[in-house]
């Protein structure tokens, strides 16, 4: 197989973790909203924790993106 083609396929595969990150982000925001609707008065206090969790989860997806970029550009 052509090396160029293998790189493109590899980069595509490396983007799959984005799906996991998407599921994770959905869980975070969904659960936050569910909790916030049950107890709206406590929502504001937990917003920072939610944003922190958002950033931490998003990172796992971005790691896949970075690996794809490294495959495409660094080799």
């Amino acid at each position: 197989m052509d090396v160029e083609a293998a790189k493109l396929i590899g980069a595509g595969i490396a983007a799959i973790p984005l799906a996991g990150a998407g599921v994770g982000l959905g869980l975070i925001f969904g659960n936050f909203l569910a909790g916030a609707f049950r107890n709206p008065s406590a929502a504001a206090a937990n917003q920072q924790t939610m944003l922190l969790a958002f950033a931490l989860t998003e990172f796992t997806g971005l790691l896949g993106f970075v690996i794809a970029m490294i495959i495409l550009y660094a080799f």
Partner: protein
Amino acid sequence: MIHAMLHPLEALGLQAAGPMEQFQILPIIPLTLGDIDISFTNSALWMTIGVAAIIVFFAMATGRRALIPGRLQSMAEILHEFVANLVRDTIGHDGKKFFPYVFTLFIYIFVANYFGLIPSIPGSAHELHTFTTTSHIIVTFSLAMVTITIVLVYGFAKNGLKFLKLFAPAGLPFVLYFLIVPIEIISFLSRPISLGVRLFANMLAGHIILKLFAGFVISLLGAGGFAMILSIAPFLGSVAIFLLEFLVAGLQAYVFAILTCIYLSDAAHAAEH
């Protein structure tokens, strides 16, 4: 392969550059220190611009120490209180001596992230294009290493060898320690990497995606005809991505600061574990 869709629109003065060009380090003033190349590059230029902007802002905000604060002073005080609360809530009483460091870290990354989002002046020299200093792994990793160095030095200085308790939480069955200690050590060693790579990856990914969408707009405009109408889609996409990046830029500065605080808190309270 990306360059295949490079479609110069000289008439518009626009040019679809590859998504990686924005990360090029270009020397402006060549300098060397011994054998080491320390040229004043576009990265250094934007670091300087960021720090100069912060200094000007704070000089203006604190110039008149009014009892009833003006707009600038209010902003500076809100920032101060925001970071002070962050430090107090995560580290506790020992946090006070780390406050200047965390504040500097936060404001430095915050400004670097946001200045990177400013669009470049069309037609200006590549050296003067806006540059996101935090999109380079060596910068973010260096900042992370500073944090971890402070954690290690302060941890050992405050707790002595009890700092090693961090790797062996008390109250576990003896056999479990063979499992827990390596895991804790690996997790500790991965901290600077994840801390640095997180910020780097966020900035890199955001700017690449922004550039890809912008590149689509240029390519579709260049194709002419029906494709020109289609170019509205990637344009709206780039606006949406820009909004997301606007959130991420602030959030990543906050995350970097809060994780620094959490690690410092570990160092401060290691002996109590």
